[in-house]
């Protein structure tokens, strides 16, 4: 394959991300539909505006992680294998840290009686968080695959579509997080 033709795998990943975003749009619509419905009372003991500390830390973690992934992608574009390995490793570890922080956040919510089964509001609130963190997990798995293939020396300046697709997906996950964060915690 010459460089002039776009890589089918990369285009496939981009098209797939479109459908992924529709999944979240569906969840957001459900969330706003329930929030906008005045006949549904959000129980007073539930945190409509929960603490911002952990999600802010997590936003920072994801931002650095996206930076690391971009560093890896730039690295292999300049044929620097070492930068690729370092970047992907850092990005994946930060992804795991994000998941850990989310787990802490979930257990804090549940300890005050706010859970997916406490109300329709709780269900949609957690649905957005849980479906997002599942995507983070998928992204980390993708990175592990990229890392293993990188260590086997399978990527070059010309052959790096999987790295690009992984970077694209990771950026998408981070972008979804920003929206999730803004909607659930600040709106």
């Amino acid at each position, binding site marked *: 394959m010459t460089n002039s*033709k*776009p890589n*089918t795998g990369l*285009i*496939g990943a981009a*098209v*797939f991300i*479109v*459908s*992924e975003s*529709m*999944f979240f*749009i*569906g*969840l957001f*619509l*459900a969330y706003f*539909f*329930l929030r906008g*419905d005045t*006949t*549904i009372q959000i129980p007073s003991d539930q945190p409509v505006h929960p603490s911002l500390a952990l999600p802010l830390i997590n936003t920072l973690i994801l931002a650095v992680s996206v930076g690391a992934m971009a560093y890896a992608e730039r690295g292999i574009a300049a044929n620097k294998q070492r930068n690729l390995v370092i970047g992907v490793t850092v990005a994946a570890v930060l992804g795991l840290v994000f998941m850990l922080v989310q787990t802490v956040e979930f257990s804090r919510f549940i300890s005050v009686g706010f859970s*997916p*089964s*406490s*109300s*329709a509001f*709780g*269900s*949609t609130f*957690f*649905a957005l968080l849980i*479906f997002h963190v599942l995507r983070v997990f998928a992204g980390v798995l993708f990175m592990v695959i990229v890392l293993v293939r990188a260590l086997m020396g399978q990527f070059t300046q010309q052959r790096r579509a999987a790295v690009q697709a992984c970077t694209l997906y990771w950026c998408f996950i981070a972008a979804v997080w920003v929206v999730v964060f803004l909607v659930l915690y600040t709106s």
Partner: protein
Amino acid sequence: MASVSIPVAKPGLLSEIAGWLTTVDHKKIGVMYLVSTFFFFLLSGIFALIIRLQLMAPGMKIVDQNVYNELFTMHGTGMIFLFIIPMLVGLGNYIIPLQIGARDMAFPRINALSFWLLIFAGIVMEGGFLIGGTASSAAWTAYVPLSTKQFSPQSGMDIWLFGVVLLGISSTLGAVNFLVTIYTMRAPGMTMWRIPIFTWTMIVTAGMVLLATPVLTAALIMLITDRNFSTQFFTTSNPRLWQHMFWFYSHPAVYIMVLPAMGILSEVIPVFSRKPLFGFKVMVLSSILIGVLGFTTWVHHMFVSGVDPLVERFFMFTTMVIAVPTGVKMFSWIATMWKGSVSLKTPLLMCIGFISTFVIGGITGVIQGAIPIDMQVHNTYWVVAHFHYVLFGGSVFGIFAGLYFYLPKITGRMLDDKLGKWHFALMFIGFNLTFFPMHILGLEGMPRRIATYAADRGWDIPNLIATIGAFTIAFSVLIFMINFAIYILGRKGEVAGNDPWEGATLEWATTSPPAVYNFARTPVVESDRPMIELRAKAAGAKSDSKTSGGSH
């Protein structure tokens, strides 16, 4: 050239089966799609026949009313999710790489995954009949609270939901595959306006699948967790949430089911009228417009659900607007046939069946799009009549047009045209006998989804006619199967040759059936009807032979 039968060491039956089970060839996958979805068509059709027997006369006791609910649920979901949508995907799977001059789909292994997910989803959905003996009985809409644990406690409901999730994954992957294939793998010279019209409709369809399906998947997962993990998405909240999420997918699904069939018509009618398609670009644009507008009409299913009247009026307007691009297609097909050298072979007859019945379904759609009329006919047999005119009169006639048109390419043998005409005539008569009386039943107030009715309602004669019609359809499908068994499986049919219909697109440039690699040499496209040039070149090459080809 006829099929070359060199007696190579014949592969054993086991390795033959293993070859089919592990294939990633788009043609073999396409054939498996066609065969398995036809099986689901027969199964769902048998459910329909049982339904019609039960409703043949007042007070019938063929089946229990709970079983009746399962039957119409599985009839509807089987026909929609396991027959119409995947049958058209199967035709696309076989034809589109050929039509664009490609070697295969962009992601052959994902293609196989899509197919096998469909099969497992089908088994899972129908599996409710086996596990615990109770399939889903909450209708294809699965409205909450009817579909919650409280009112549908059977595990058949859970696995039905799970099956539809699997189908969603299958068709989303398929949509990605189609879009990337068509974007990256077209033959050299196939510019945007040279993409064949069937491929164009599949682009729009795949786009709709890509955007609509994830929302349904989200809703299904939410319902599954409500039923099993005590979440509260639908149980304590407004029941309209499910309806919005369901119809956000399921109204576009109507166009997902009918657009590829419209694409088939737009291929078949020009070939059998010996004329180019009238207004090709307008046909492409109207398909795109249908695809876009298809996302703006879903609330017309909810006019009695208590939506804000202003919102209702907006959706009434969009519902009527979407009839415009559909009407454009109608006129284009008629204009294509107009003053053409029309050859009334079975594929064209099926197209004429589509046009004449779909137009009725389209018009009743506009009629019931008006809010006050909708409130009268909602949940009556009028609606059943309407959507069967769209989905049977439209999609199924289109599917059979596609099968009669493309089976010679797929199998290398022609079907018998006389039996085909009997199939068409009986199916057309049977279809109208079955579904036209349902308009009257609906206006007389017969509700959908009832297992029986009292004798004094005056509903018995239209119901009897509908039952007779349903069995006429079944008989016509039997004729198709006999035709297929004798002339294709029995190899009694004429050898099709590369180009039996003198088609205009690249799938007719290769052998029937095509070799594994599709084209020995990648074709170069120089116009929107590449076969015309290829035939002219072939005729020029042997100019000493007679020049009368019958085409112009």
